[in-house]
């Protein structure tokens, strides 16, 4: 019994982080859904959810309750066991992948030596959830959707993997914490060293989470809802939770690898230290907006609620400001990297998600063969070339002593030239395909 207690004490930090992840993630996913609906509405000249709570702030809770109460239909000839386990596989894969990520210098569940590889590997297990879900609901539509999404995920994972390899060459290590530390030592984020790699990773990650222009499997207009057709009630919500967890995971990988994880922009240069105040400033601005909107709320309870929310934001602003005010050596001051690190990391993840949503509402959907052609004939060759480019840059920089200001831009231009050639070759082939469509 004693060893068990020692064991628990030794890892209580990780345990708390794990609990936070499992408990907070569904809530965060709910609020990402709200954010998405608000951003979508904003782009489409309308208001979005406004009724449940002031400005729809309580909408996610309402959605969750609704999904819980909804009838959970299992198709009669479905394979009950697999039908039940499929969404679970997806959700566990998503949440497990969160464990290796370093949200802040303190907030990391497991600093695995193979951190990034672990996240990508476990993410790949999510395919089982989708494929088995589509198959076990025994309807023709969901099977077609499941097969399509499996093919899409597999092909875009190669592209994402190679894009990550490109950045790993720079980092030299797989552990998420050390990657961010190397970016701190270099003083430059990898997005500037390998911009093509970042672009490929953005496109591949969108396809990998079945979103925006690549959301073929549940394309409403063709296959009704892809593999999720037969799911309803909370089981369907699990799939949705898995999708948003995957989105957060993919965004965190990009932040860790390319956008300097928990580093403040211009972390090194002291001239930009005023940026340290940015987190509390942002919180104060949000609190101000809540106060400004509070009196306008129609119902008295919503006024109160908004005031409480505003107070909350002021509290958070104070927390962020505290380590700056406190005397240098004190305990409070030492909390600065942890708190601010987490803030910057989550801010970058948030901006990345905003990019996801922005693309979703401006672009129509790719057709399946165009999607696969883009993946295999453009993205994967380009990512291979990108890996070679970065390798070349490293050789030039380290062996031949070129300054990194010349080596990396040169290779980036080289990769872009190759990208141009690939694109034109692809376009020529498209014309042929268009012709095929004609005479078939």
């Amino acid at each position, binding site marked *: 019994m004693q060893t068990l207690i020692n064991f628990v004490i030794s890892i209580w930090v990780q345990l708390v982080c794990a609990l936070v992840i499992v408990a907070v993630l569904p809530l965060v996913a709910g609020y990402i859904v709200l954010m998405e609906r608000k951003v979508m509405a904003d782009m489409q000249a309308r208001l979005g959810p406004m009724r449940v709570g002031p400005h729809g702030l309580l909408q996610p809770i309402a959605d969750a309750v609704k999904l819980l109460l909804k009838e959970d239909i299992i198709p009669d000839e479905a394979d009950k066991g697999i039908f039940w386990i499929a969404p679970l596989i997806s959700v566990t894969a998503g949440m497990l992948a969160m464990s290796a990520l370093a949200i802040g210098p303190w907030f990391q569940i497991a600093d695995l030596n193979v951190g990034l590889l672990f996240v990508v590997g476990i993410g790949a297990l999510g395919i089982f959830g989708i494929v088995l879900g589509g198959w076990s609901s025994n309807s*023709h539509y969901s099977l077609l959707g499941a097969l399509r999404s499996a093919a899409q995920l597999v092909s875009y994972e190669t592209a994402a993997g190679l894009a990550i390899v490109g950045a790993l060459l720079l980092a030299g290590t797989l552990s998420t914490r050390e990657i961010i530390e190397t970016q701190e030592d270099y003083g430059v984020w990898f997005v500037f060293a390998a911009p093509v790699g970042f672009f490929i990773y953005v496109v591949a990650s969108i396809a990998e989470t079945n979103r925006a222009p690549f959301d073929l499997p549940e394309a409403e*207009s063709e296959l009704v809802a892809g593999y999720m057709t037969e799911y309803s009630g909370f089981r369907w919500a699990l799939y949705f939770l898995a999708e948003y967890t995957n989105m957060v995971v993919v965004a965190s990988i990009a932040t860790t690898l390319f956008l300097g994880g928990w580093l403040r922009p211009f972390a090194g240069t002291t001239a930009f230290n005023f940026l340290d105040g940015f987190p509390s400033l942002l919180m104060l601005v949000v609190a101000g907006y809540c106060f400004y909107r509070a009196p306008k709320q129609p119902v008295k309870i919503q006024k109160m609620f908004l005031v409480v929310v505003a107070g909350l934001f002021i509290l958070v602003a104070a927390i962020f400001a505290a380590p700056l005010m406190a005397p240098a050596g004190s305990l409070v001051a030492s909390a600065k990297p942890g708190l601010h690190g987490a803030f910057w990391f989550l801010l970058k993840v948030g901006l990345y998600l905003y990019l996801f949503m922005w693309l979703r509402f401006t672009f129509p959907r790719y057709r399946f*063969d165009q999607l696969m052609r883009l993946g295999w004939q453009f993205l994967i060759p380009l990512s291979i070339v990108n890996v070679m480019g970065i390798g070349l840059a490293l050789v030039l920089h380290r062996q031949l002593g070129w300054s990194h200001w010349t080596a990396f831009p040169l290779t980036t231009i080289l990769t872009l030239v190759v990208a141009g050639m690939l694109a034109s070759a692809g376009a020529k082939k498209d014309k042929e395909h268009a012709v095929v469509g*004609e005479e078939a």
Partner: protein
Amino acid sequence: MAEQRIPFATHAETTVLGADEIVLNMGPQHPSTHGVLRVKLRLDGEKVIGSECVIGYLHRGVEKIAEHRTYTQFAPYVDRMDYVAAVSNGLGYCEAVEKLLGAEAPLRARVIRTILTELQRIASHLFWLGTHALDIGALTPLFYCLREREEILKIFEKYCGARLTTHAFRIGGLQYEAYDEFEKDVERFCKPFDTRVNEYESLLTSNRIWVGRTKGIGILTAKEAIDYAASGPVIRASGVKWDIRKAMPYAAYDLYKFEIPTGKNGDTYDRYIVRMEEMRQSRLICLQAIENIPTGPIMGKVGKVLKPPPGEVYHAIEAPKGELGYYIVSDGTTQPYRVRIRPPSLINLEAFDKMIRGHLVADVVAIIGTLDIVLGEVDR
């Protein structure tokens, strides 16, 4: 473990990877069939090799009802056919009966009719653009289009009290005088509308994915378009420069200058371009018309009880979907002996089977969208 048979989509007549093809049923309840159209697609893997359209789910027997109503009583039924462009249905019917009577609507009535029909054409094309883009995955244009369409529906509501099935016209002229700030409303809508169309175009026309999804899809050559008697934007996109408003002007179309946009190779992209250009032209017509709406009576010399002399007439107008024709046979009584309505949506749909051969399932949705069919008109 009890014998647990793997039921594998046995009820649907499908064999997933068998040598023969799958029959995929895009049933009446499908989010993108613009109403209750059922399409039985024969697929070889993902490629469509044949199709059969099953229609009739919305058949209300309008032509049978017409034989038991007087001419005036039948006018509201006409709005329920192509419910997206009710005003132009009404115009077609009223002009056909006027021709049967040999009567003529006064100039002021004809000018107001032209303005309202052109506004209806813009509203119909806006609704088409919104749903067509939504089917192909672009979520945003739908809301922009509906925002503009709302303005037009407000004008209809102010004029005749109804937004959708307006029954705005009467045989022989108009029932209602144009409300006093009618010209101002139409101008307030038309002035900024050009920038709005540019706004849609900025979202879609040069968008690589949109072009990829529409160029070369559902090609209909000019010869085929004529053979299948396609009409409206579908035949103009195939390169045939023919518009009833120019060929056989009706209402007051001959008083205004406007172009007829045509496409080159008759694919979904050209039909999109043609309809966008048509919206611009309709705007020009409206602007020209409201500059000077002639004064005068709004109702021609048509008696209360309409008893047209026996005989028949075929009158066609350029509805947003294509040529909307009315073949009315009168036997001298107050009720039409036979009313046959030429539904442009149904006849454009005939070319559907030829257009989707060799394409993928995703294109079927785009092609249904580009034909701009409304099942109320297809099934009558």
